[in-house]
């Protein structure tokens, strides 16, 4: 079970009793969902769902919302999650809040809606909002909270098979090929507590960045410049048109700090930068910075960290 899913369960418990929805056969995942608080687990046969983009999943959720009248629907933020949420909002006549970094109960005890926190305008503003019509639909960013495993064995975790009717209209955007992303062996970028990123200043050689990431147990990220130069796949891009991250520690190496990049990492708790250019805008954001060449600073730092461990 991915960490964002477990975070959703922890957030849901603040509002009410969580029911998890699993498309396909959960297998042993059902046990994990239970341990993290799921009272119910709806399983849905994925025959008419898995080959199509988004629309059938939205239909499943709409039918579940109609049947169970939940206090809210929580969906992980991401390309697919937000599109499911968008369709679901129109289908159910409900308001929608995306990319929440926190969900609090608000006045849900009296039938009110949960209150969300969002970080907007490249992290320059924090917004509190809530849905005022229908069933609140909220997409939640990873790293919104620490998942809580329940001490007493968890929720009831009662599994119930839900039969959804998928319309012909939903079975129209076909997935004709799928190449799963290779596991990097490192933490997932959007979920990691530490992100070590490289930009134009790497000159295309990410060895020092990757070595340092491994030394601190972090995920690897990249600026748009590095991705556009073909040095690293787009999946690693941090920024407005890539991933938005908010880790405990963000280390920017050879990254100037253009607004497009800052939008993706500005809310990180601690920011560190290594850059040859002392005028680089990234230094305006940092808690600590080194003006120097990342290709010498990072390997030296990596070695010192290894010595401390040893």
């Amino acid at each position, binding site marked *: 079970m991915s960490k964002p899913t477990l975070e959703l369960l922890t957030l849901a418990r603040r509002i009410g009793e969580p029911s998890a929805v699993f498309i396909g056969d959960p297998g042993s995942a059902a046990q994990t969902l239970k341990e993290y608080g799921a009272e119910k687990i709806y399983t849905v046969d994925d025959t008419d769902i898995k080959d199509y983009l988004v629309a059938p999943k939205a239909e499943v959720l709409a039918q579940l919302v109609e049947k169970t009248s939940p206090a809210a629907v929580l969906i992980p933020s991401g390309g697919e999650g937000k599109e499911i949420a968008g369709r679901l909002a*129109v289908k159910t006549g409900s308001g929608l809040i995306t990319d929440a970094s926190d969900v609090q109960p608000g006045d849900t005890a009296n039938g009110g809606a949960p209150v969300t926190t969002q970080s907007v305008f490249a992290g320059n503003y924090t917004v509190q909002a809530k849905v005022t019509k229908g069933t609140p639909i909220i997409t939640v960013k990873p790293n919104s909270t620490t998942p809580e495993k329940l001490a007493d064995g968890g929720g009831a975790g009662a599994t119930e098979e839900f039969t959804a009717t998928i319309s012909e209209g939903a079975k*129209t*955007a076909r997935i004709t090929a799928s190449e799963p992303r290779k596991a990097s062996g490192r933490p997932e970028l959007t979920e990691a507590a530490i992100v070590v990123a490289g930009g134009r200043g790497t000159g295309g050689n990410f060895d020092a960045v990757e070595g340092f990431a491994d030394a*601190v147990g972090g995920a690897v990220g990249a600026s748009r410049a590095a991705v556009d130069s073909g040095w690293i796949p787009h999946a690693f891009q941090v920024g407005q*048109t890539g991933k938005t991250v908010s880790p405990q520690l963000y280390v920017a190496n050879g990254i100037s700090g253009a607004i497009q990049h800052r939008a993706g990492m500005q809310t990180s708790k601690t920011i*560190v930068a290594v850059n040859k250019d002392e005028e680089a805008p990234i230094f305006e954001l940092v808690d600590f910075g080194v003006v120097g060449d990342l290709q010498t600073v990072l390997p030296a730092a990596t070695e010192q960290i290894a010595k401390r461990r040893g």
Partner: protein
Amino acid sequence: MNIVACVKYVPDASADRQFEDDYTVDRVGVDGLLSELDEYAVEQALQAKEKLGDDTTITVLSVGPENATDAIRKALQMGADKGVHVVDDAIAGSDAVGTSLVLAEAVKKIGAGDGWDLVICGMASTDGSMGVVPAMLAERLEVPAVTLGSEIDVNGDSVTIRRDGDVATETIEASLPLVLSVTDQSGEARYPSFKGIMAAKKKPVETWSLSDLGVDAEMVGLSAAWTVVESTEARPPRTQGQVVIDEDGSGATALVEFLASKKFI
């Protein structure tokens, strides 16, 4: 083929973006422009037309305040054929749900004569950054949504994309009519040429209000929104901490000491 490229006029992201007293986005006090991510949508419309031939008409559509015409003009300069600007005071403060309603009705009206085949959007706006309007549009128009395409192939009767999904890279295909959204990886957006800038001056732009679309003012705008912002707070700007100059390895030592002091290692 009739293509509609949706574009949004947004506050410049490099300027000081703010909120009005009613928590709507200030679209007046800050310079605006065609949202960068929507340039890619216009570019893909132009590439589709280059591939399919002159029988293709590209209408650029924008819902926004008076100055949104700047966004439409830029798209016309890039090479779109005509523009539609939906402007109405009642639309101000609409949420994504309301915006998608207005856009859907505008698309239907654009297609009223010969029909419409393809709506192309950017992957998200650069102000709201929700990324949900393309899916909502498809839902309202009752067509497939083929979204977040990084490689786009528009054919006479279908669209195929490559999409870098959350866990896998996928190939997606659907028949027209449909809603397509494209990412900034889909191909560099062209700069308007001098010829394009001059030609744009003669291209027609229609202006429509809510009543032209048959949309009830009560369905849109701030008071009709299905979400409410309760408060906004400016984050205090980050203050610069310690910056050291690396000399013979001093940088690495200082960095490691900092990380240790914060218990990251």
